[in-house]
């Protein structure tokens, strides 16, 4: 555990304990406490990341893990957007009780910061379980039948993941005698027989692949995202499944790279699963009728790109995977928050009932165009650069078939998003959209901020690239 980053973990936890006592009589106070804590944390981490003095020294004065700092930034950003959005989304007549809702969000922010700052597998497992428990409760926070169904499926289909992680930890204790990332790297470098350690790391990897919803284990993802309470599905898709699954997959694939040729098959399978989920996610998203379900399949497809790059494992591919993780968090949050706005403004997010929404909800329409172009990888926006890095890394690493297929499925991504945009926002207004009204400006603010960030990440890409190279890629020992 990096102790200097402990404050990012403890302060949200303290707020989570404080909220039930402070907001006992005045429920609105829960909104304020949650938003203020997250804003303070975001400003604090931005000061480290965007300080001109640090940029001038090309980040050589930052001794912490650059990957962890970037992940903390994105955790706080997405969590702040979701809490700010939901403080206006939850009406006075809503069934959602604000106090446990914000308390759970703060606990899960704390658990996610724990995941990204921890230094050993056992602590990682504990924080992943804490995050899972808070997610079950958050999905079912509006106490609807759909939410409960999604939460139960999430519970039953991801619980086996923790069994695999536990068995992996047991075998790791037998073969390596330690759980800490650094000691495992040293043990790998000392040249012990690789088979047993690779087996135990692969078991842990399998657990985290189930948690991240990669193709053969993706059955829970669409149900959990569709059933979840609307802002919570943005939170889940934007950051929770990325941190609880994909982050650990990237971490383990960095370790597996140290085995060089001995862990070749694990890396090969990882790349195959990545490609499979790109294909299955993109093709299934083409024929969805419900917006949130389509976005869930799109999320599976985008996670496929990250897993594919992590399986490649070269420094450039890992850099692309991390950058795509950040970009995916931004544009998926925008799209899911827009689906929540549609639910608020038009009463439904079913594509068959909506049409011609661009007149009623122009801001929602334009922001989702920006987000979908970024997801599909259209040049000035951020998604283009991360996909370009991933495809160049794949081509360089010799996986030319995967590079070509990844490029082709990028076109399918554009296709299903264009179908979505046409059905919901263009065309003739339907009955549901005639009565629709744009949501209030405060609810548009997080979406617009995220869109500006997407554009900025794309336009100022050289600076972002130098940050990624100097703090992450240069410090991965390969």
């Amino acid at each position, binding site marked *: 555990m990096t102790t200097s980053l402990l404050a990012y973990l403890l302060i949200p936890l303290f707020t989570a304990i404080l909220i039930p006592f402070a907001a006992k009589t005045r429920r609105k106070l829960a909104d304020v406490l949650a938003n203020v804590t997250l804003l303070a944390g975001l400003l604090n981490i931005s000061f480290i990341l965007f300080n001109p003095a640090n940029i001038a020294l090309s980040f050589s004065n930052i001794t912490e893990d650059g990957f962890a700092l970037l992940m903390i930034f994105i955790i706080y950003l997405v969590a702040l957007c979701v809490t700010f959005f939901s403080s206006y989304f939850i009406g006075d007549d809503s069934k959602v009780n604000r106090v446990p809702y914000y308390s759970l969000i703060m606990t899960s922010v704390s658990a996610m910061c724990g995941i990204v700052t921890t230094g050993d597998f056992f602590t990682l497992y504990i924080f992943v379980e804490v995050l899972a428990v808070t997610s079950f409760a958050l999905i079912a926070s509006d106490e609807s039948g759909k939410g409960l*169904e999604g939460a139960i499926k999430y519970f039953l289909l991801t*619980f086996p993941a923790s069994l695999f992680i*536990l*068995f992996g*930890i047991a075998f790791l204790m037998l073969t390596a005698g330690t759980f800490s990332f650094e000691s495992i790297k040293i043990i790998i470098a000392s040249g012990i027989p690789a088979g047993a350690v690779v087996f135990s790391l692969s078991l842990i990897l399998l657990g985290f692949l189930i948690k991240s919803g990669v193709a053969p284990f993706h059955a829970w993802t669409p149900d959990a995202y569709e059933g979840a309470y609307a802002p919570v599905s943005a939170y889940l898709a934007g950051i929770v499944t990325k941190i609880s699954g994909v982050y650990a997959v990237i971490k383990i694939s960095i370790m597996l790279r140290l085995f060089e040729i001995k862990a070749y098959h694990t890396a090969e399978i990882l790349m195959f699963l990545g490609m499979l989920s790109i294909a299955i996610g993109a093709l299934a998203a083409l024929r969805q009728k419900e917006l949130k379900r389509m976005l869930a399949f799109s999320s599976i497809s985008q996670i496929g790109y990250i897993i594919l790059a992590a399986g490649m494992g070269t420094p450039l591919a890992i850099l692309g995977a991390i950058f795509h993780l950040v970009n995916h968090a931004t544009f998926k949050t925008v799209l899911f928050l827009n689906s929540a706005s549609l639910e608020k403004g038009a009463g439904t997010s079913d594509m068959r009932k909506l049409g011609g929404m661009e007149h009623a909800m122009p801001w929602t329409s334009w922001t989702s165009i920006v987000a979908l172009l970024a997801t599909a990888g259209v040049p000035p926006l951020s998604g283009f650069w991360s996909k370009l890095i991933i495809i160049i890394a794949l081509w360089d690493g010799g996986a030319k078939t995967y590079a070509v297929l990844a490029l082709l499925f990028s076109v399918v991504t554009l296709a299903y998003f264009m179908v979505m945009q046409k059905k919901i926002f263009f065309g003739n207004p339907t009955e549901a959209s005639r009565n629709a009204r744009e949501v209030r400006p405060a609810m548009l603010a997080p979406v617009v901020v995220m869109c500006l960030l997407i554009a900025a990440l794309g336009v100022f890409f050289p600076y972002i690239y130098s940050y990624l190279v100097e703090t992450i890629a240069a410090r991965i020992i390969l």
Partner: protein
Amino acid sequence: MINSFSMDWYFITLIFFAGMYCMLVSRNLLRQFIGLEIMSKSCLLGVISVGAKTGNLALAQALIITMIVIEVVVVAAGLSLLVKNYRITNSVDIWSLNNLRG
């Protein structure tokens, strides 16, 4: 002395597959939870057995106690979901969870 490590893992595998069988054949959500619990208990036995083998029992015990606490929390969350679902749908059948499809 009998090689207890291989005997341990024989029984751990047996318990694991007993839990898996329980999950596969039952339609009742509560029985599925019991199956999950049996499977995770086999994991805990695995950790203890490995600790005994490597002479690291103190660490293994510390891990086990933490894991038991975590599991209690997870299962409590799962059971609360089950109870709420029962209040809404009046059923604990796993096949009644079919409202979400696309």
